[in-house]
Every structure is written in C-alpha cells, then in structure tokens.
C-alpha cells in the first residue's frame, strides 16, 4: 500500500474514531470474558463447597446454573460485539474507504 494512502487514512477523523472505539470496546469485552471465565475457574478451585451447595429445595446446586451462565455469556458477548461491529464499525470503514477512494 502506498504511503500516501496510509497518511490520508491516518489523518481521517473517522479512522481515529474507528480505531479508538473499536479497540476500547474489544478490550473491555475481552477483560469481561476473562473475569467471568477465570472467576468461574477460581471459584471452582477455591470454593468447591459453594459450587456444590444446593440452591433451594431440589438437588440443583449453584455450580450448574453458573456453568451454564458462562456458556451463555460467551455466546452473548460475542453476539454483542459482532452486532455493533457489523453496523457501526463497517459504516465507519466504508466512510474511510470512500474518502480515500480505495
């Protein structure tokens, strides 16, 4: 890619906006995923009693809904990112492309 296009893209305010918002959003969600997953793992490692404690009258324990929650959370958080990216970020990208004529 020639340096001229690179510089033109870099000076485009839309590019800065795209880079910054996407990076912040991506890292926020990454940390959220890490906290949920490693939180779950550490809970299993350090507090087995709690995970095996029954919630109510039945045999259901805290561990099972928490585990299923991690699975659903994983799918949901991916969906949230993809939804925003496929709309907002792609619009910004198209605007940048149109401006530099690439």
């Amino acid at each position, binding site marked *: 890619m020639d340096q001229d296009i690179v510089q033109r893209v870099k000076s485009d305010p839309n590019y800065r906006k795209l880079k910054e918002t996407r990076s912040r959003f991506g890292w926020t969600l990454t940390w959220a995923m890490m906290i949920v997953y490693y939180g779950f793992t550490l809970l299993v490692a350090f507090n087995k009693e709690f995970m095996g404690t029954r919630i109510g009258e039945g045999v259901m324990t805290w561990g099972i809904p928490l585990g299923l929650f991690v*699975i659903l959370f994983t799918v949901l958080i*991916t969906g949230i*990112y993809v939804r925003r990216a496929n709309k907002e970020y792609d619009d910004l990208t198209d605007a940048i492309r149109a401006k530099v004529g690439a």
Partner: protein
Amino acid sequence: MMARNFKHCGAALMALLAVSGIAQAAPDLGQAAQQATNWTAIGMFAAFVVLTLFITKWAAAKTRSASDFYTAGGGITGFQNGLAIAGDFMSAASFLGISAAVFLDGFDGLIYAIGFLVGWPVITFLMAERLRNLGRFTFADVASYRFAQKPIRVFAASGTLVVVLFYLIAQMVGAGQLIKLLFGLEYWIAVVIVGILMMVYVLFGGMTATTWVQIIKAVLLLSGASFMAFSVLAQYDFSPEKLFRTATEVHAKGDSIMGPGSFIKDPISAISFGMALMFGTAGLPHILMRFFTVPSAKEARKSVLWATTWIGYFYILTFIIGFGAIVLVGTNPAFKDAAGALLGGNNMAAVHLAKAVGGDVFLGFISAVAFATILAVVAGLTLSGASAVSHDLYATVIKKGNATSANELKVSKITTIALGFIAVLLGIAFEKQNVAFMVSLAFAIAASANFPVLFMSVLWKDCTTRGATVGGFLGLATAVILTILSKSVWVDVLGHGAAIFPYASPAIFSMAVGFFGIWIFSITDKGPRAQIDRAGFEAQEVRAETGIGASGASGH
C-alpha cells in the same frame, strides 16, 4: 470398578481432552473382543462417503488455482463457515470425551466444556477481522506481513506442522480404536480408510470439499446430539430437576456429581489449563485458516458468532447427554461387562445412550457420525499442514514469492499425499501408545508459539523479525519440554516414578516465555531489518483496521 473409574477421570485433565480420551481407554479396548461387524453403522457411513465423494467431484471442478485449494476462492459465507469452524471443533473426542466426563463425574465435565468455548470471544474481539484484512492463505501471511519473510515463515510452518502432526496422530489413533469398537473393523483397516478418504477430499476437492464435508458432519452431529438430549429430557417431563435428582439417586458418587470434584486440583493447573484452551484456540492453524475462506471482515465476524453459538449449544447438549447416560446407561446391566464396567470403556457412554434412546438404527447413525467426524477433522488438519509447506515454505521461502499458482498447487497436493501416508503410518505405529498428551500439547504449543507471534506482530509496533522468530521458537520449545517433564509423558509414557513438572498444563509458563522472548529480543534488536520492521507497522495497522488494500485477498 469405582476406584478405577476415579483414577481414569482424575488421571489428567488431558485424558478426556479430544480423542485422547479414547486412547486412554485403549487398554480396555484391547481386552474387549473386537465387536461384531455392525452393518447398520457401516451402511450409514457408506451413504455419508458416497455423498461426500459427490461433493468432492463437484468441488474438484471449482478447484483450479492455489487460492481455490487453500480458501475455496474466498467464496464461503459466514453462516457456512461458522458451521465448518464448529465442525472442526466438535471432534468425536469432545462429543465422546465430554459426555464421558459428565457420566463419570457430573459437574466436572462442564468445566472441560466451558474451557473449550471461552477462546472464541477473544478471537472475535482481537483477531478475526485483523486476520481477514491482513492474510490470504495461512496465518503466516499475517504474522510475516511487515517482517523478513524467511525466518517468520519457517517459524510459522514449524508451528503449524508440529501442531498438525500431534493433533493428527491423536485423531488417527482415536479413529482406529473407535472404529474397531463401533464397526467391528480391524484397527489398521480403520486407519487406512481414514487416510485414503481424507486424501481424496483434500487432493481433489481442496478447501471447498473439506469445508462441505465439515458442514455436513456438523449438521449430522448437532442433529443427532439434539435428538439424544431431547429424548433424555422427554423421559423426565422436560424437568432438569427430575433428571438431576434421578441421577444423584443412581450415581455411585451421589450428590457430589452436582458440584466440583477431583478435576481441579490446584489453582495453577486450573488457570494454566484454561489458558492453553483459551489462547490455543486462537493459535490453531486449521482454525485460523478458515478466516481466509470468507469474502470480508463482516463475514469473518459472522462466522465466529455462528461457530460460538453452535459450539455452546453443542456443549450444553453433551452435558444433558452425560446425565442421560448416568440414568439410562449406568443403570442398565445390558451395557456393562461382568465386572460392572461400561462395555468398551467409559468413552462409550454417549454411544450406549444412543442405543438406549433410539435403538440399533440410531446407534448405527451415531457411530457413522462419529467416524465422519474424525474424517472431517483429519481432512482440515491435513489441508492446513499442506498449505504451510506449499505456501509458506515452497512458494515464499524457496521460490521467494515467484512460484506460479500451478506449481504451488502441485506442491500442496504432493504434501497432502505425503501427510496422508505419514498420518497412516504414525497412526499404526502409535496404536499401543498412550497418546493422551498429544492434543493438549497441540493446544499448549498453539497458545505459546503461534498465538504470541500473531498477537504481537499485529498489535505491537516495536515487534521485530528477530523478536518474533526467537520468541516463537522459545515458546514452542518450552511447551514441548515442560510437557515431556509432566506426568502425562514422564510418568504415563516414559514410565518414570514422579513427574518433574507438577502441573497439568505448561501454558501459563510457556506462554510467558513466548511473550517475554518476543519482547526482549525485539527491544534489543538494533539491526537495519528492525528499522524496516518498525517502519512497516503504520501501513500494516491501517490495513488491519480497515481492510484497505486487501480487496484482492480472496482471489477475486
């Protein structure tokens, strides 16, 4: 029997990881007589083979250039690719292994399943679109974008081939054992059949055929597993509470199956193992390659969302299937031998459940799907190994970028044949070996070598050729050495008394070595090449963020 089950499941986290679980049960299989030839299963598998061969014929007509071969010409949609990625991930092993883990220990099986899933969001947020925007055929295209080609390509091809080889051996050994049991065929025949069919798909149909085989298998596996989970729940009025209560009443471990058991021993092993799964997923070459088969970053994102959805759904199903096996298989003497152990070993829990809920025909269906699953995964691995040799080593390193598409295609086909032979020979050679460590080693290497290089080259401005190459090799070596010193090789394979490396997975250490190596060998790099490397970051970043300049990437 209880004690043995307990040892089996506690043996290592790896034991049930992927097909390795099947291999772990190898001694059991050896003692059990080969099963009677199962014609229903063979018939259904034959139907699958005929269908996939027709698809291969159709795909062959579309596979003319190297781009067609590697990436199906970039013409796969996000939805299709998502299914194919899910197919790559839902191996026979995760199906049989995770449901067996749930059957044995209940809740602990859920911990495995979650570990396999959590890498996907990270890939989505940090890697998927950048990969798509920067790469063409292999992840080395991305890692070497602004670097000196030769060292990075040699590293990436090594990382790819090592991961592919360990993964392949584990799959081949698993295939042999599983098919001997399910179909009543001899071990070596099963391995040869897998080898030949896989070569046919990849050789003639390239990525198009490999993807469609994977999609069909994913649909069959998801349907079969859905039916099993549905049938189990239907017997308990769709009340999980009833299912769980019955399970705690009949399971030898009683209430303890509803909470964590012996699976997580120490926090370091737990975190390390989780890191290997989470970041290893983002460094598996046959998965990364799939991001180049879609036409745009948008489709790349859609693929991961679909893949994550299907894989998450699938793991919830395996959890229900495992509990179903506890209540319907564990209580039925017809599925047990004289000593009270499960026929064919614990990994057969889901297979026996298929018979319990759907009779012989459905058992045949699930057996055929399990065979198809191994076949599809093996084909994807081989294609990925072949592209590392033909695209990274031959076209870029040896021919310095001047190879014609036709020659490159020829080399990938020769490599495919070579890999097919190697896979069959190693599969037969390792028949009696304990290969439980191989899949987890593949994940650890992917997390400690491929992932750090990819991550740092794309996101860190000051990364240099020297840093990426040296750091990558250090991560790879550390993962291999620590695995050899850990229980799964040092004790279980080499027969020494106690393991030198005490944890279940090397990832937490080997990833640190990989990242630290890249950092230290980059910042101390003052050579002329280092300046070119750093100067190239700007242009790389613009393309990674916007895809400008990548329009030709899909070969259209």
